[in-house]
């Protein structure tokens, strides 16, 4: 932890704002009815989907401590709960944490 924390925070926020700023700048010339808008919309959704599945399949940090099979079970159960509860977002989310904690304490 040799480097200054405040400097690291500033650098992180600058690097983050850069993409947001460039996005707002690019969007100035784009109409929501244009083809390029639809392309960007696809990019946004697919990049998010790629990020989420990357986090679930190849996690870094805390989730990487969880056994691969357990993660798959939690993912499949959450999708099942999502459909069973008529596409409710709260039940699968809350239950996923409880199921993971329960399964993890059994396995370890």
């Amino acid at each position, binding site marked *: 932890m040799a480097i200054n924390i405040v400097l690291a925070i500033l650098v992180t926020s600058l690097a983050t704002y850069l993409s947001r700023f460039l996005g707002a700048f690019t*969007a*100035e010339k784009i109409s929501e009815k244009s083809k390029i808008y*639809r392309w960007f919309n696809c*990019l946004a959704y697919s990049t*998010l989907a790629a990020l989420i599945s990357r986090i679930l399949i190849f996690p870094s940090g805390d989730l990487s401590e969880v056994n691969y099979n357990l993660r798959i079970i939690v993912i499949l159960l959450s999708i099942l709960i999502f459909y069973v509860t008529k596409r409710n977002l709260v039940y699968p989310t809350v239950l996923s944490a409880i199921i993971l904690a329960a399964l993890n304490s059994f396995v370890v």
Partner: protein
Amino acid sequence: MINSKYFLQGILASKKFDSPAIALGASFVAIGALLKNLGFTIQESIFSTLLTYALPGSLVMAESMLIGASLVNIFLAVWLVNSRLYPMTVSIMPLLKHESQPKWKYYLSCHFVAVSSWLILKSNYEEIERKYRIDFWIGIGTATWLVAIASTIIGYYASDFLNRDMIIALAIINPIYFMCAMIGVMKTVQLTSAILLGALLGPIFYFVSPEWSVLIGGLVAGTISYFIGEKYGN
């Protein structure tokens, strides 16, 4: 300056029962706890969420600091992981545009672009009069931003009471929530293929390059699905 009626409507849209704010809160509690363990003070932790307000970026910063990376390395790593915010911003700003609104609103409020606020806007903007959509968006952004900051503070002080299993359980909430939210928006051919292909190609490109997998996977999947959608209709 900012229309308070629409601003308030934006705030209220963020506190619905199944709002992404839940997932956002859970993950920033985890971040608060992580920053405390890294040796951040409470002020520095608040400062970090206030200024960055993007989860993967904060995680990358924390990981980079642990291994003693340089500031240039932190900048590049964060830029890479947060560059998904670029297409996300481009895909909402045209919906908020109105010639009577000043430009500073757009350039300031783009700071609020994050997965949760983005999803809230995407599912509500059509009900809002075009002229005031930017004020509605600023309301959403303010609400989700405050949730993130409050959760960071809670996580920071709760970290002594959270055991390993609880931290791990908190970490799964965010991706599971967004996975279900993504399945929920698969309503057109174009979006369904964008989401399915993205979810497939992201991990596949991980074998080629872990750092670039999300961006390259997203770019390839998004472009293919754009053409699929244009060909087979929406």
